[in-house]
């Protein structure tokens, strides 16, 4: 079974029974089994299996190029897959009924540069059938209410990223897939976004947040450590630290890589 480390730790969290996660189903929002993705002739994900618990903030950590974005695209249903299964809320990823329930924020802000912040959000709100007042609410949530009337092309990179994030929040999605949402943001803002993520999770949403910065790990309830298209380990930050005896997640990551046979 791909994705389960061979280092024998009792804290390798997922046990598989006939390809299904034992007893976790109701508590699982995203379930990935033997996912294989080939992009441009390169095997990006050779057979990835993992699961994301409901109502949590799960961090997807790993160096850039390890397949985080590809995995996220597969979860959202915009990635062509070569094999395996991805289930979101018990349904096949990308199913039409999921499109209103899964919010997705790409790594590069995917918004219209020639429209104002508000115009962008109003367009997406109409597509998502979100009530009128939501635009103002999400603008406040991401701290952009003061630039609502400004054209997106005049915003800073960090502000654009937040417009992109706000667009995904409009319809209160049950699952939020965020690809490096806090890159390049100042620490104060980063902290307030992580607080927002936790507020959303405590309201019942499931968040999968990717980052290549290991120090964001401490802010997550659960972690998925990825490298070269494979899952190195999963568990809560404390569990991973305890298991590897490392002082921080970066150290844990290194220990896990070494336990697997070192750097390739």
């Amino acid at each position, binding site marked *: 079974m791909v994705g389960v480390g061979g280092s024998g730790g009792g804290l390798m969290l997922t046990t598989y029974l006939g390809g299904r996660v034992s007893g976790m189903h109701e508590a699982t929002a995203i379930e990935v089994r033997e996912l294989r993705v080939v*992009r*441009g002739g390169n095997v990006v994900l050779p057979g990835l299996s993992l699961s994301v618990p409901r109502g949590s903030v799960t961090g997807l950590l790993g160096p850039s190029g390890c397949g985080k974005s590809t995995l996220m695209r597969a979860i*959202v*249903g*915009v*990635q*062509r*897959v070569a094999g395996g299964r991805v289930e979101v809320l018990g349904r096949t990823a*990308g199913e*039409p009924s999921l*499109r*209103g329930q*899964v919010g*997705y924020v*790409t790594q*590069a*802000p*995917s*918004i*219209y*540069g*020639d*429209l104002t912040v508000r*115009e962008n959000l109003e*367009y*997406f709100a*109409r*597509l*998502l*059938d979100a009530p009128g007042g939501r635009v103002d609410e999400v603008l406040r949530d991401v701290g952009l209410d003061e630039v609502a009337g400004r*054209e997106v092309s005049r915003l800073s990179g960090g502000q654009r990223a937040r417009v992109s994030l706000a*667009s995904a929040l409009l319809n209160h999605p049950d699952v939020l897939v965020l690809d490096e949402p806090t890159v390049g943001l100042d620490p104060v803002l980063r902290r307030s976004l992580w607080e927002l993520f936790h507020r959303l999770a405590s309201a019942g949403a499931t968040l999968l947040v990717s980052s290549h910065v290991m120090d964001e790990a401490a802010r997550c309830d659960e972690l998925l450590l990825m490298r070269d298209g494979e899952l190195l380990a999963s568990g809560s930050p404390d569990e991973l630290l305890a298991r590897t005896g490392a002082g921080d997640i970066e150290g844990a990551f290194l220990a896990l890589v070494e336990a697997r046979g070192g750097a390739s």
Partner: protein
Amino acid sequence: MRAVRGTLATAERVLRQLRRDPRTVAMLLVVPVLLVVLMKGVFAGSGAFQRVGVPLLGIFPLISMFLVTAVTMQRERSSGTLERLMSMPIAKLDLLLGYGIAFGLLAAVQATITSVVAFSLLSLHSDGPAWAVVLFAVGNAVLGTALGLFVSAFARSEFQAVQFMPLFLMPQVFLCGLMAPRASMPRALEVVSDYLPLTYAYDGLRLVATDGTWSGELLRDVAVVTVAAVASVALGAATLQRRTG
């Protein structure tokens, strides 16, 4: 209901984006007028202006909307907004129809301005009513939008999208009867032209200009242009992939 909402929201969004780019809008509206004026000058001594004037009024929107759409759609792909939309509850067809409506409206304005200038200032004559010319122009614009959407699926950059114009439209312009009567072409080319939508767009406009009655031939031309526009929107929707590599 959801479908109509997605279509209208998209049309409105595209028009808002255009409004933010007044230079492009101005060029779309003014350049055809300048070209018609230029044509009038070029053909001053030959009477050919009368022959090609009306068809050209209807063909300009096809070319300009093709270009605008191909580039806009390519931009939508490269900016990631298309991927976002594909993860949202909007049907592909609604997205394309939204584009069609927005650019169709723009084409109506474009064709109206060009026609007013041509008919009133440049003394271009048409037996059929001027509104029929404008209507054809709008139909052609929707066709151009649909073809632009379709080819944008095969372009990997805005640069490539623009290159599809000479590849996709110029042969149709050459073969449609505007340059030379189709009957005088080699048989093989004439047969090819039978299958190109622009042939019918040209023929319909020619009939409006020289006949002006609703003949069976004109109805056929209108029908072919309409079917071609609908078919290319459908093709565009089919080439738009929710899942990409």
